[in-house]
């Protein structure tokens, strides 16, 4: 508590030196307080977040209408829908089928197992969410390692690193993705993510995989030996049952298609950008809950992580006050003063700062704070730089991402073992730095092909069916969109 007070006080002093006004000082201090609470009092982060809102509202830094607007209910409802869908897919046996498919892979070797888990973790993180991905992959790892009597920790670390990298591939994987996608000006679509982020994710994933195959070569070789010995005895890695997976697979594929085509559906229906994207999971969840009505309440009560979602809401609202009090404008200004307008400098700066920040602070916290700054800089590649930096930075330390904490919690609960901070840091730093450098390189190459802010704004206005808009009206529409977001 003393550390928190000292940090908050220090921030207050610093902001005074930087000539911020009282409201700006209060919003900065409360935001930093929440970050420190996340670091030092993880179990109490939600109550502290509630109290922070109380302080902001009580000091009139945050009004209720702004609070309701800034708590990003669209992002929250998107996540609610996704969590319900994941619960249904789990019930239907899709994840059981996936794990069994891995377990019964013929002639499995250690390196093959690592390739499978890293790609599976990444792809699941892309399509469902990172926490669900790591829970399932960890279960697979525990099953294999328990059967073969090998230490699961290296494989858990590999899976977590793959999950964090994979979560940068689409906007479904990480709340950071949907936050950046939805709050960019104008919003980014699923196709945008597939075009500009997914390929970078694949390249960083492959390069990180080679790093990890080398880093943990001893453990992987031991796994190979044990797999071979087990095969010699004609024994498998776990019981296999005939799971009726096809319904789950069909629902999963349908969900991905629906979300992937949101851009075209919005254009066809004349809806605003990302409207279908946000509502699609809710619609699918609603249909699924009607179908499986006996379990509907269970999905809402047990599968939706309300604790985390409420924390996100409070966090987004607090980040919103930084924007409302124009703190982010000032920071954007200082950023430009420090790094200029050149993308060749700004891109690595944003990647580096966001990676370093999200290494120590949960990546969603950092993204929520930094997003308005990046928006103000008005350069499209910086949005992708922020995404890559916050996702890849989550690999650097064991507290960098929710997936890390969940995985290590599962490991501790099952085996009563834990990992030291520096043990993770060694491999996390190497993978983090390598992947950030690759992301920087890829963005440097692709940035010249990315649409500019004006091109994106024009495209966004074409969503709305206004065949008789004149050019001045289009220009006004662009300006109005800018104000709205």
């Amino acid at each position, binding site marked *: 508590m003393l550390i928190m007070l000292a940090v908050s006080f220090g921030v207050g002093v610093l902001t005074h030196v930087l000539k911020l006004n009282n409201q700006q000082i209060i919003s900065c201090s409360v935001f930093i307080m929440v970050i420190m609470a996340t670091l030092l009092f993880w179990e109490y982060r939600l109550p502290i977040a509630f109290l922070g809102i109380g302080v902001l509202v009580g000091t009139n830094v945050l009004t209720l209408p702004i609070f309701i607007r800034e708590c990003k209910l669209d992002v929250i409802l998107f996540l609610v829908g996704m969590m319900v869908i994941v619960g249904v897919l789990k019930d239907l046996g899709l*994840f059981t089928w996936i794990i069994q498919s891995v377990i019964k892979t013929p002639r499995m070797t250690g390196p093959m197992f690592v390739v499978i888990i890293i790609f599976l973790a990444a792809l699941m993180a892309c399509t469902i969410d990172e926490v669900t991905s790591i829970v399932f992959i960890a279960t697979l790892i525990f099953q294999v390692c328990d059967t073969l009597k090998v230490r699961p920790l290296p494989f858990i670390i590999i899976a977590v690193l793959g999950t964090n990298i994979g979560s940068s591939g689409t906007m479904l994987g990480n709340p950071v993705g949907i936050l950046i996608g939805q709050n960019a000006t104008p919003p980014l679509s699923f196709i945008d993510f597939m075009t500009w982020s997914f390929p970078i994710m694949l390249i960083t994933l492959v390069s990180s995989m080679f790093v990890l195959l080398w880093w943990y070569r001893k453990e992987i070789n031991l796994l190979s030996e044990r797999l071979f010995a087990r095969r010699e005895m004609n024994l*498998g890695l776990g019981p296999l049952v005939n799971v009726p997976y096809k319904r789950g697979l069909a629902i999963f594929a349908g969900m991905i298609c629906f979300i992937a085509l949101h851009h075209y559906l919005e254009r066809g229906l004349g809806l605003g950008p990302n409207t279908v994207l946000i509502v699609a999971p809710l619609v699918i969840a609603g249909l699924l809950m009607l179908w499986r009505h006996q379990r509907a309440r269970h999905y809402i009560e047990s599968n939706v992580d309300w604790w985390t979602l409420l924390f996100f809401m409070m966090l987004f609202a607090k980040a919103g006050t930084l924007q409302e009090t124009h703190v982010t404008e000032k920071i954007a200004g200082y950023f430009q003063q420090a790094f200029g307008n050149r993308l060749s400098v700004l891109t690595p700066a944003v990647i580096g700062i966001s990676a370093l920040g999200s290494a120590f602070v949960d990546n969603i916290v950092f993204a929520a704070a930094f997003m308005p700054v990046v928006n103000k800089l008005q350069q499209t590649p910086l949005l992708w730089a922020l995404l890559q930096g916050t996702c890849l930075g989550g690999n650097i330390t064991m507290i960098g991402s929710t997936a890390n904490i969940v995985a290590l919690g599962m490991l501790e609960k099952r085996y009563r073992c834990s990992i030291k901070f520096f043990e993770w840091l060694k491999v996390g730093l190497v993978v983090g730095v390598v992947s950030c450098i690759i992301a920087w390189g890829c963005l440097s190459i692709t940035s010249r092909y990315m649409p500019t802010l004006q091109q994106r704004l024009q495209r966004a206005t074409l969503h709305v069916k206004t065949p008789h808009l004149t050019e001045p009206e289009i220009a006004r529409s662009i300006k109005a969109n800018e104000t709205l977001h």
Partner: protein
Amino acid sequence: MAAKVNNSIRFSSLFTSKDVICQTTETDRNQLLKQMLTQLALVRGIGDVEEAYQALLERENEIPTVVGPGIAMPHVRLSAINQITVGIATSQKGIKYAPQIEKPVKLIIMTLVPKVAPGAYLQAMSSLAKICQDPKTADIVAELDTAKKVWDFFDQSGMTLKEHLRASDIMSPVTIKLQEHDTLERAIDLFVHHQVRDVPVVDKDGNLMGVVTTHELLKICLPDYILWVEDLTPIINFEPFAEILRKESKTWLAEIMTMDYATVAEDAPAAQVAKEFAKQRVDHAYVLRGKTLTGVVSLAMFLNKILRE
């Protein structure tokens, strides 16, 4: 007042020669027990004699406490006393103690313990363990012709009540165990035949390697990834169990045994056993001397001994 030797209480300090009925002519067990209670009531005051007698009879009729050749140690918990009270009776010819006990009982050591002193009886019993195991003890004491001599016998034997109960005082020997080279097939046979839920696995030196539990076996048959599925259809005919049955003779115990079990050292306080039960939520705690398995304490047995015996 109980005499202490190095913080342990001498057994002989728990009674005097006035508490001894020497070479009784009584042949009926129940009458003798009543006589002993009446004598103790006269000398020390033990509350309602009839109530104590009924409680004693109920216990002895259920399970006669014959602890050694010709030695019985009936006991009862009483609210009216606040320290352990001992009465002794000897019989030269011996008494038919119970229908199922063939050898006549020549030495009866009656122990009255305060109701709120869990484990007191066990402390008393553990202090007498050595003489109880000697087959000649009952005959020797029965031949002593005065109460003073009987008292001297116990005093000179140097028996002391330990300051606290130890794990070794409450453990039972391990009669069902597996060897490290056994397979799952043998483990399942033991589970079924002996109706046990866990079996320790030891190596050739008797060191505890791990424990095989029915719970672990169930987890192997139904791992987490199968339990995710809400629909029972894939397992409705116990398909995962069929898999296990196919491979039971090839599955080594090392694959299924758990290292997650409670252990206590032999000389650890019995309260440590309670702590392990509470902390680890297990039904058994294994007693070790170093790494060697020497006994087991089950939770049910533990509660019975501490709270009821």
